[in-house]
């Protein structure tokens, strides 16, 4: 599904950048100008233009702090506009993360801003991609669910303390493996964007990158130091002036992490299925996503093994297909049937319309020729499951409920944030 993003200044409509997903052709200059023109026309009449639908695509506009206009053009999949708004919000906060709020609110030198904004491209491109969209649409961070991770908590805590910080974490193949209580206390959006930043780094690198935290510190930069311990396994720490990258590399890394080399290897080799070990997954389940909306964590798995001779084997779906089914099911359920849960930090109008239902829905399902989907919305949890079409219709509700119950009890959803006093 192609997506285009255009960023302009609100005053004058000077294009700052435009990005297109995958190999789609970028929007022509005239098209960018037209998208801005419509918005400016509305603005001149005191109207806020939010979104529109064309025959085959959706367009969403957002103005941030009266200075930056973002326009997103996406193929129409019938889902709510809420999600387009969420992506735009993420894009703007990515810009804040790299450049700080001040330089985006008060535009001084446009030419320089345009050049500075180029640092954001890798993260923004990843937000427009479809493949890993679950953490961004659910405003949560994707986690790795393996019990071994707990044994890395102590080394991480002592390493972070040694760096004179309280914010630190370890990412494994782009997903959060273990983090300090303060890190868990960041907003879902911040954790998600930082994960994407870390994912964009070369896998043999150590880096020192100035970042702003969109909610916790939008005006004061910190240094995000990330070191690849193994290729694909990164430890990150947020600090101020000290320590330097060279100190971290030469003095702190080996002493803190070499003793845990084998454990790190084990974590890196964790199966792609990403299911907590203690949980038995019904063989009819092809893919699932579970979100804890309070702790902003999610687990996604689209690569569940198909058991030989099982019902699912009769009409196997590719991983790509499962992923797109699950994503589209999420988008079509949340914002229309289920209410949207935003991070409490998010203050913008999300574009959510009042539900058309007279009651609040708790479960939703969908049947198709080659698959079935079921979702549950409970207090803090949301579960979305894709089943094989062979699973009998009456079973999917019970299986989903039992699955969610066992997931809820898993260690991965223990709240590790600092208790607010």
């Amino acid at each position, binding site marked *: 599904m192609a997506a285009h993003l255009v960023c302009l200044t609100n005053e004058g409509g000077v294009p700052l950048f435009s990005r297109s997903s995958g*190999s789609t052709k970028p929007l022509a200059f005239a098209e960018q100008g037209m998208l801005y023109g419509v918005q400016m026309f509305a603005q001149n009449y005191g109207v806020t233009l939010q979104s529109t639908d064309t025959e085959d695509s959706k367009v969403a506009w957002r103005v941030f702090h009266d200075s930056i206009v973002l326009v997103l053009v996406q193929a129409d999949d019938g889902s709510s506009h809420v999600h387009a708004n969420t992506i735009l919000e993420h894009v703007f906060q990515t810009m804040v993360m*790299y450049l700080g709020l001040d330089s985006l609110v008060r535009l001084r030198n446009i030419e*320089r801003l345009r*050049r*500075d904004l*180029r*640092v954001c*491209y*890798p993260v923004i491109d990843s937000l427009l991609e479809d493949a890993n969209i679950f953490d961004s649409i659910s405003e949560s961070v994707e986690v790795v669910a393996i019990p071994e991770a707990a044994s890395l908590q102590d080394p991480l805590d002592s390493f972070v303390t040694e760096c004179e910080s309280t914010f630190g974490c370890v990412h494994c193949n782009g997903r959060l493996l273990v983090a300090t209580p303060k890190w868990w206390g960041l907003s879902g959006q911040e954790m998600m964007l930082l994960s994407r*930043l870390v994912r964009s*780094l*070369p*896998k*043999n*690198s*150590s*880096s*020192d*990158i*100035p970042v702003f935290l969109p909610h916790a510190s939008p005006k004061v*930069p910190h*240094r*995000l130091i990330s*070191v*690849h*311990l*193994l*290729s*694909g*396994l990164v430890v990150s720490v947020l600090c101020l*002036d000290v320590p*330097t*990258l*060279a100190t971290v*590399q030469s003095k702190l*890394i*080996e002493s803190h*992490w*070499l003793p845990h*080399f084998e454990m*790190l290897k084990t974590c890196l080799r964790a199966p792609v299925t990403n299911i907590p070990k203690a949980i038995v997954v019904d063989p009819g389940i092809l893919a699932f996503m579970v979100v804890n909306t309070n702790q902003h964590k999610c687990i996604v798995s689209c690569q569940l093994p198909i058991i030989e001779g099982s019902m699912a084997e009769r009409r196997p779906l590719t991983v790509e297909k499962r992923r797109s089914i699950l994503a589209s099911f999420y988008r079509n359920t949340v914002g229309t049937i289920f209410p949207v849960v935003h991070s409490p930090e998010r203050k913008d109008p999300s574009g959510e319309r009042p539900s058309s239902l007279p009651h609040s829905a708790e479960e939703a399902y969908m049947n198709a020729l080659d698959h079935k989907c079921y979702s549950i919305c409970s207090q803090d949890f949301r579960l979305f499951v894709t089943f094989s079409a062979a699973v009998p219709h009456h079973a999917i509700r019970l299986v989903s409920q039992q699955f969610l119950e066992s997931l809820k009890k898993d260690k991965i959803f223990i709240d590790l944030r600092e208790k607010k006093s």
Partner: protein
Amino acid sequence: MSSVDEGLILPDWYKSKDGKQYISSVFKGGKRKIFGFLERPAIAPQITPELKFFKIRLIGKSGVGKTSTVAKLTGQPAPRSHCETPGIISSVAYWPVKLKVTGKVFLLRLQFWDAGDNIAKKYDHIHPACRENADATLFLFSYVDRSSFLDLHKQLNDTTEDFSNTLRVIVGTKFDQSFRSEITSKELKDFQKQWKIPLLSVTNVHKTETDSGHIVTETCNDLNDVAPSLNRLCEYLLAYDMIKQGLLEDYPWVQTEVKPTEDDDSDLEATYV
């Protein structure tokens, strides 16, 4: 190119049977092996070579190809389109070389320190961090951007920086487009004569147009693509290191300190890779 033939290391050693057992620790199935900070290339203990560490810093104006050069030399995919580097990114590559004279094998651990030019101007901790204890400085220019070449003089003359303790190398990027080069070979020659600095020319990406009209960017990561550049760079680093230790008297283009320029320069030839 006498200076190349009488080189310090064996340039084609990596193709030989002897070299293969070392190369296979950093190259597997035509792909570079990627090492995290806690990892090392696995080489049989009886042939374990001496490990040498080098910190290499890159200088050059924004967009000249610093990140792509590092990506090529360390075996990572180069960015598809131009992105600013958001801070300091330091990447590691290992490369084995064999000395011509003694036959000794060294494994070099090259750590490239790449910092975005714009970001370095904004935050003042970035330049000092890159400068600290650097063994070599690569000055980058692009063959298709004349101003980046003219900037070299300014960068080499920068009085706030002290390069006397580092090996200096100039690196010309986008060498594949040298047919539309904006710099004449005479200028390059004169430049080298003036500064006595070795030159390394690299092609970091292949751009091919597909049937549908898209431009596909591929990093030149093949063994045969990167080996000559890495060999050349390692040769200079080793020579520099040996001169400092007093093991080697002199080596063409490599200086440990800024010497007066009245030396006999009869053997001046641009040393392309």
